[in-house]
């Protein structure tokens, strides 16, 4: 037997991770939608669903980087996923090939997912009639980081010793802290809200009177999130770390420099759920 038989160099993996956040207690994504060929495919995490209810028409608007574009009024009766996709692809803020739509009006809602490059946009709907609902994706990517993400699991243990034996007879876990840490690099409202434990109120602009703005209010109420960390694995099919309840109460120290570096907002997500709710899914086979 050679030493080379005792290890598999292919299991040594480098690579980044992406973190998605949702309101606390949001369940894990539907795993049937997870793309094992591309674990960073956001379709499974950031798909809109549009229920038409008793509506007769809908106008869809896509806002991205301060620019909006709207479809014409689309008649619900007979609307197909292909027609809806064509209408959205025709928007200047989306472009050809920027969106994928599935579903029908007769059997269920439409599912709308955007290209990765359009994830910073927002889709809204104006329905004619009642019962129409455009459900925004539950999950949102945290965005760019300075040096990626760190997954940690710190344990405090208690040794159990007896006089009659030199080595300990047992060990208990007195406390355990599972955390995901990173320095967010996108200087936007969402980043500030996560880093500062702040609530957000958006105020619309009043034409020629006052500008629009977001108000972030720090709160002593601990805000909770669900979190999913996605990365590749040795098998090549991806891995998800998920827990339903995390807090983000890390210390923040952001420097505002002319040219020495970008603004960074440190976040430290820590679980507050039972250990058996913390799951690590290592995908080993594709569909």
């Amino acid at each position: 037997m050679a030493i080379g038989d005792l290890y598999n160099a292919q299991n040594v993996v480098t690579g980044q991770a992406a973190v998605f956040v949702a309101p606390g207690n949001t369940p894990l994504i539907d795993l049937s939608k997870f793309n094992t060929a591309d674990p960073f495919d956001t379709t499974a995490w950031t798909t809109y669903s549009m229920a038409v209810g008793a509506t007769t028409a809908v106008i869809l608007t896509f806002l991205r980087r301060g620019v909006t574009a709207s479809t014409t009024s689309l008649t619900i009766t007979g609307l197909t996923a292909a027609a809806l996709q064509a209408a959205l692809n025709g928007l200047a803020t989306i472009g050809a090939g920027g969106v994928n739509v599935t579903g029908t009006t007769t059997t269920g809602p439409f599912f709308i997912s955007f290209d990765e490059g359009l994830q910073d946009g927002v889709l809204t709907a104006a329905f004619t009639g009642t019962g129409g609902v455009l459900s925004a994706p539950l999950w949102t990517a945290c965005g760019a980081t300075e040096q990626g993400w760190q997954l940690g699991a710190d344990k405090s243990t208690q040794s159990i010793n007896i006089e009659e034996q030199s080595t300990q007879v047992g060990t208990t876990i007195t406390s355990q802290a599972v955390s995901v840490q990173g320095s967010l690099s996108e200087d936007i409202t969402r980043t500030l809200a996560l880093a500062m434990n702040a609530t957000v109120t958006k105020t619309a602009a009043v034409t020629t009177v006052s500008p629009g703005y977001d108000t972030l209010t720090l709160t002593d109420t601990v805000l909770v999130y669900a979190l999913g960390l996605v990365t590749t694995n040795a098998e090549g099919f991806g891995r998800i770390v998920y827990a339903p309840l995390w807090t983000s109460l890390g210390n923040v120290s952001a420097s505002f420099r002319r040219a020495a570096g970008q603004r960074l907002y440190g976040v430290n997500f820590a679980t507050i759920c039972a250990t058996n709710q913390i799951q690590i899914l290592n995908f080993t086979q594709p569909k």
Partner: protein
Amino acid sequence: MARTSDQPVEPNTAGLASSGFAEAPVAPDEPESAEVTLVAHLPFYMQRFNVPQEDGSVLSFDKHGTRVPTGDADRLIQSAADNGVSLTREAN
């Protein structure tokens, strides 16, 4: 064997005139509701969406819904869309 009568059978309408049945009144058309409830669908980190009005007041929307005049609904929904917020009409 009973003898079948040759006389035509007259329908017995004697009771109908005094039966008390009257033509059911037609309910007048329901007037369109003066207000409609708009519900905001906000990103996970956002709790409220405010729309300042010309008279200085502020309409505030969250996931619980806010009643607004029906005639203002379309304008408010478009204003929300311009800000990346989805407002939907809730069925009454």
